[in-house]
Each structure stands twice: as structure tokens, then as C-alpha cells.
């Protein structure tokens, strides 16, 4: 087993390249900048395009344009940048523009601490679009996940025609680790589904947002033989403004259901079921590593505790959480924030007592603290 040594941000870039990404635009920001610098070494020599936007809004604009011209696109930022992204995020969600957005989270709010980690943007990612449409958010726990989940993110983005977020963290993005990338089985790469109508010759029947109920419209790129319209305004199937309440209502429902109905397909997780355990600890991101360490130690000391690590945060893997929690009396949720995800779990498990511990002070939650929470829970 040969190992390489890289930070999570480099692994994101490698995952993107493996998924066929050929366009990156971003604006420098700690702790996400090294995704940009890695893409800058990887894309240009191979005919790809890597651009430093004049600001974050522009970076998203470049990505939207390039995606609409048919490219697989990536951008990366951190808290202050994702805040600026939000007007364009709404556009990409509402107008079904595929892209992968990495948020290497740093301690907020606001400029916060550039070099301190946190999982403080989880709810921001969920709700950053005006309209409140559902989104896909994946959370890596280490560099290997950064690699694999980025590939998954591209697949989901292309398949569902939507932005997919990767909620990384300074503690993953900028921590270097030994990794065996060859040990990762990447998912088969999904290409954007082009419309059969109008792909190779002009066909006025092509409507850029025509789709079956709850499904995803077939894509044609701007620059294709058949003319394509894209708009950030409320639109009908033809891509022109509409005020027809039925058309609008159906389209909103479709935008919601295309994501929510894909819950199972989108659910990624890891679990460690321990014989005889009556407690399940649910966590995600870098915190789940300390959780696993804590539970390992507890098990050695005679108290078996199981773990569930969520890799997909949104859409909430409801079925998974319900199923995996079923046999446990006690549920513990640990987050590197003051409690942004736990309510999604309490909501699903009203009959269970849920112990929560959250910490957001710029340092990692230690295994010792987690053991204390589990034991006193």
C-alpha cells in the first residue's frame, strides 16, 4: 500500500479532476485558497480553464456561464465568500445550473478567524437560497472523503442539475494526511444528460426547462445548434418569464421533489455498529473522527458504543437516521457548532432522548470531551 501525503483541499482538486471538471473560478480566501492553487496547477496544462475572479460574486458568475456552456465546474470559498455567493447560488438552484461549491468552513460569524475551523455554515448552506429550495450538502471527514465526495458531488450535480455543496472545514482542508487514493473506489462518472431533441440539429421543440413531474430537464448548452435560454427570473418550460400560478407552482414543486425524492440515492454515510451497544453517536465532518476514537476507547473499557457518520447532510437522510437509530436507547449528537443539525435528528426521533454537545471555539472537540458527554448522557 503506497501512501501519498496531502491536505484535504488538494484531495478535493484531485477528486474534481477525476470527475471530469474542466473549469474553476474562485477568489482567494483562507482556508480554501489551496483548492484554487491546486486547480491552477492541474487544469491549464490539460486544456482546462482556471480563473481568479475579481470577487466571489464574479467567480460564481464565471462558473454559471461556463456550466451553461456545457462545462463541469468547481468553485471553492469560505464563510465570507459563501455569503457573497448567495445571490448566484439562488440563481443556480432556481435555474438548474450544475456546479460543485466547496465551502472550507472557518470560524464565523463574519470574517471570524481565517485559520480556525468550525462547522458553522451548515444551516447557511441549507438556506442560502432565496426561495428556500432544498439543496444537496455533503460533509467529508478527512482527505480521502474530500477526494471521493467531490466525485460524488459532480455526479449529483450533473444528474440533478443543481449546485452541490461540500461542507469541508479548515481542519480537513488544511490538514495534511497520508492517503491511499488508489484505495478509493470512485463512483462511475455521470455525464450531464443532453436532450435528444435539438442536440445535433435545430429543433424548436426543445424547451430548456421542460421536464416530467418531479424530474430533471434535459440539458443543451448555450452555443448548441438549437437556441438555449437561461434566466434567473421565474420562468416556464420555455425559459421566458411567466406569472401563471399553475406553471410556477408546478415548477417549484418539481425543484423540491427532484431533490427530496433522490434522498436514498444521495445518502452517503459510514457506520460502526458495535455488538451490545445501547448508544449511537451521530456526527459528521472532522468531529466524527474524534467520535470514533472516543467510542473505540469506551469499547476497550467495556462500554460498547456505536457510531453513525453522515456524509450527506442534505437532503436529510431521514430513512437512514430512522433505521440506524431504531435499536438504540440513547442517541448522542456531536457537532462543531452550537447545534445546527441536531434538530433534524430530534425531529425524526421524537420518542428518543437525544443528548447534544456542540462546541465552536476554534479548536477540535477532543475524544475525551466526547467520552464525557457519552458517559454523562
Amino acid at each position, binding site marked *: 500500500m503506497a501512501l501519498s501525503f496531502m491536505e484535504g483541499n488538494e484531495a478535493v482538486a484531485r477528486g474534481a479532476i477525476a470527475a471530469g471538471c474542466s473549469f474553476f473560478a474562485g477568489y482567494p480566501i483562507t482556508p480554501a485558497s489551496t483548492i484554487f492553487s491546486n486547480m491552477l496547477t492541474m487544469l491549464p*496544462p490539460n486544456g482546462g480553464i482556471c480563473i481568479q475572479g475579481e470577487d466571489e460574486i464574479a467567480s460564481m*458568475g464565471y462558473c454559471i456561464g461556463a456550466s451553461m456552456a456545457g462545462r463541469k465546474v468547481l468553485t471553492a470559498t469560505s464563510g465570507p465568500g459563501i455569503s457573497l455567493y448567495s445571490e448566484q447560488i439562488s440563481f443556480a438552484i432556481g435555474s438548474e445550473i450544475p456546479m460543485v461549491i466547496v465551502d472550507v468552513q472557518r470560524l464565523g460569524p463574519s470574517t471570524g478567524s481565517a485559520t480556525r475551523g468550525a462547522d458553522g455554515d451548515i444551516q447557511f448552506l441549507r438556506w442560502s437560497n432565496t426561495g428556500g429550495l432544498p439543496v444537496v450538502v455533503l460533509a467529508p471527514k478527512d482527505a480521502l472523503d474530500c477526494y471521493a465526495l467531490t466525485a460524488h458531488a459532480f455526479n449529483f450535480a450533473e444528474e440533478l442539475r443543481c449546485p452541490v455543496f461540500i461542507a469541508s472545514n479548515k481542519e480537513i482542508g488544511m490538514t495534511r494526511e497520508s492517503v491511499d487514493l488508489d484505495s478509493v473506489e470512485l463512483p462511475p462518472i455521470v455525464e450531464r444528460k443532453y436532450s435528444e431533441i435539438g442536440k445535433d440539429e435545430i429543433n424548436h421543440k426543445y424547451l430548456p426547462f421542460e421536464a416530467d413531474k418531479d424530474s430533471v430537464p434535459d440539458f443543451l448548452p448555450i452555443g448548441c445548434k438549437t437556441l438555449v435560454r437561461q434566466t434567473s427570473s421565474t420562468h416556464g418550460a420555455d425559459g421566458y418569464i411567466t406569472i401563471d400560478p399553475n406553471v410556477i407552482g408546478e415548477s417549484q414543486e418539481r425543484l423540491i421533489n427532484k431533490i427530496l425524492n433522490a434522498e436514498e440515492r444521495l445518502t452517503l454515510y459510514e457506520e460502526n455498529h458495535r455488538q451490545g451497544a445501547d448508544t449511537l453517536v451521530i456526527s459528521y465532518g472532522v468531529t466524527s473522527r474524534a467520535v470514533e476514537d472516543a467510542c473505540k476507547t469506551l469499547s476497550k473499557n467495556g462500554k460498547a458504543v456505536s457510531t453513525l457518520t453522515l456524509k450527506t447532510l442534505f437532503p436529510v437522510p431521514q430513512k437512514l437516521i430512522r433505521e440506524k437509530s431504531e435499536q438504540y436507547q440513547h442517541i448522542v449528537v456531536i457537532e462543531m457548532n452550537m447545534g445546527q443539525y441536531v434538530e433534524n435528528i430530534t425531529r425524526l426521533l421524537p420518542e428518543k432522548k437525544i443528548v447534544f454537545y456542540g462546541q465552536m471555539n476554534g479548536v477540535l472537540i477532543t475524544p475525551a470531551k466526547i467520552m464525557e458527554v457519552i458517559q454523562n448522557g
Partner: protein
Amino acid sequence: MDSFLNTKRPPVFCPGCSHERITKAVDTALVKLNLEADKTVLVSDIGCSGLFDTFFNTHALHGLHGRALTYAAGIKLANPELNVIVTMGDGGLGIGGAHVLAACRKNLDLTLIILNNFNFGMTGGQYSVTTPSDAVVGSEFLNQAEIPIDICEIAKSGGATWISRCSGHDSSLPDILCEAIKHKGFSIVETLGLCTGRYTKRNQLTPKVIDEMIERLPTYGGIVEKNQRPEYGEQYRNLANQQKSLPELLKVDKIFDLKDMKRQEIVILGSAGMRIVTAGDMVCYAAISAGFNASMKNDYNITVLRGQSVSELILSPEKIGYAGIESPTVVIALSDEGVQRRIKLFSKLEPSTFLLKEKSVSIPETSATVVEIDFKEYQIKKQDWALASLGFIAGKNQGITMEMLDFALKSRFKPAVYESAIEIVKKLATITM
């Protein structure tokens, strides 16, 4: 094609609005140039000028206020074959000013048509960045306290290669637009026009007054000599082609067998300029060569040439979970700043911790086993202290061995750098305390 206008969606502007004339002028220009509809994209943003994309049978992208140039740039970079034309009002010009400047500097082959009608028509006639101070607009007195910008002047100093200013009523507008679209690089056409719905209701503005305004303003008739240079996309692709391909990812096999593989937690406490991160990197590669997993967390100031530089390393035969340091096995203290950064660490150290400290560095009380070395005595430069200390700990088989370290240096450094690095490493490798 004799017209690109979408007959199903005729212009819907207020009667007398200059936008309507400009719409027709754009159509005439597209026809004159004989552009292919499927190779032409109209990009627009918000406001009355943002309706433009709906009137034409071309590709179209309509987006957020002021951001049209960003989408246009993405499209053009992704597919350089396309003719990309952007329309923007004076509102978009203000809110998207940074993008206009970036487009001027870049010189990507886009055409920007600015529909300047001196106010925000759609939202109620509020003042914009081009509203004269003495105009009567929907923002009460606010415009009186500011002055309008001259976008042509700004674009010129910003590096735009082609600029023209004309009336929206100018009969030569289609020809001007043709020239702008043909120009290989970023071209701006500022059209001055009437917003009959709002602006001209309270201000004396007629086509004649606009002509007089243009007379008074600096003249822009296309090519800006001093800014001529290659188009951005071509430049970009030329430069990109010259970039070297990324070297293969370094993969290290287990080549050394350690009898006793124990987890190590190593903390290097130093300052900027001491190459602490490089030293940490070497330790990790050394460890990987003996089949360890490794993780490295660095802590340095955002002003990279000042302040502490701390590297925290975990080397473990098992997969590494929590990547924080809990009980260090080795601490290397090379600067007071570094020590201060982790001051709480020292009281928790056990006698089993090996602590190497440079003579000049002061550390708080600790139970660790302390070894002090005067690096100056060995004539080691400050920037080499970290590397030299690796030689010392490897010589004592603390965490890593000499052969592991030698391997790491060889695989990470070019031969010449390796030679000098190994010299430094050897300086302390054989000393006994």
C-alpha cells in the same frame, strides 16, 4: 437572416424609450454582420435593459443585477467560438462596477452595450452612477450631493481596447455596434438615451440635448490606441499551453521495517522563516516510508514572515482519527514565540516526552526529559535549526530513524538541495549528550 428579432415577443418599452431604437440597432448590426444565431449569445441583467435577451432569436442568458459580464466571461472562456454581447443599464454599471473594470483589464472578446438613461427606470426613477447632480430624480436630493461617472473615461484608464460613446438615436448606431462586435477584444458602446417613463418627465432631455452632451464630453470613436494588446482568451490559452504538466503524485511504499511501531506525537515550536512546515513534512514522509500513517497540522500567522510557526505531527501504525495532539512524545522548541503559542502544553508533559530545546529558548517548568543544544556552537543558521533538529532526533531514533529521514529528504528535494540538507541533518546526528 433578415432579422434576429423574435416576432412573438416584440419590445414592450414605454413609448419613446430609447431602448426600443437600440433594440432595432442591435438587430440591424447582427444582420449586417451576418452572424449565426446559434453562435451568438445575448447576456443581460436586471432593469429595463434586462429585457433585451427576450427580443432576439439567439442564445440568451438573463441573470442578476450587474453580473451580466461575469456570465458572459464564463460562456466565452468555455466556448471561445461564440459571439457574446452584453447589455447593461446605468444601474448594472454601478452595482457591477468591479466586473466592468475586470472586463476592461482582461480584454476578453466581449461586447458591452451600456444603455445609459441616467436613472433607474424600472424601480421608480432613482438616481444612478450616471445621474447628473442637477437632475430631478426619484431619490429626492441625494444625487445633488454626488457627481456622475464617465464610464468611457474609466474604461479607458481601466484598459479597454475599444470604446465608443453615442446617442441611442444616432442613425449610425448599427455601424458602431458592428465595429464593436467585430473588434477582437473587449469593446464598450455607451449609448445615451431617454427614459420617457421616468426621467424625461421631470428633466429637459431630448435627442438634441443628448447630442450636445456628447459634444461636450470627451470623444470616443472605437479603438483606444494606448490600450491595444492581445485578446485575453488567446493570451490565456497561450500561457496555459506553456504550463508544465503536474508531476505524478508521489506515492511512498513501506520500505523500512521498524521493530517497534509506536504512535508518535511530535510538536515543532518555531517561528516564521525557520522552515518548520518543511521539517514537519519531512518527518511525515519519513514515517510513511516505514508504514506509518501521518497527519500534520500547521499553525502560523497570516502574515507569513512574522510570528510563530508550529507544526503538530501524528505518526501512527493505525489510521489517524482525532488529529489534535494529546500527549506528545517529542517536542522541539526552537523559538520563544513558538513556545508561547503552546505554553499550556509544557506542564502536561511526562518524563517520557523527549524535549529538544535550543539554548536561547526559554520554556516553562516541565517534567519532560529536556535536552538543550546550542545550535550556534555547531554553526547552524537559524533557518536550518528545524532541519538540524530532525537529524538529532533521528540520530536518537526518537520517532524516526536516520535512514527514514534520508529517504524523505531524497524523495522530496532536488539532488542539489538534498546534498545541502543532508549536510545540515548530519551536524547533530551523531552527538551524544
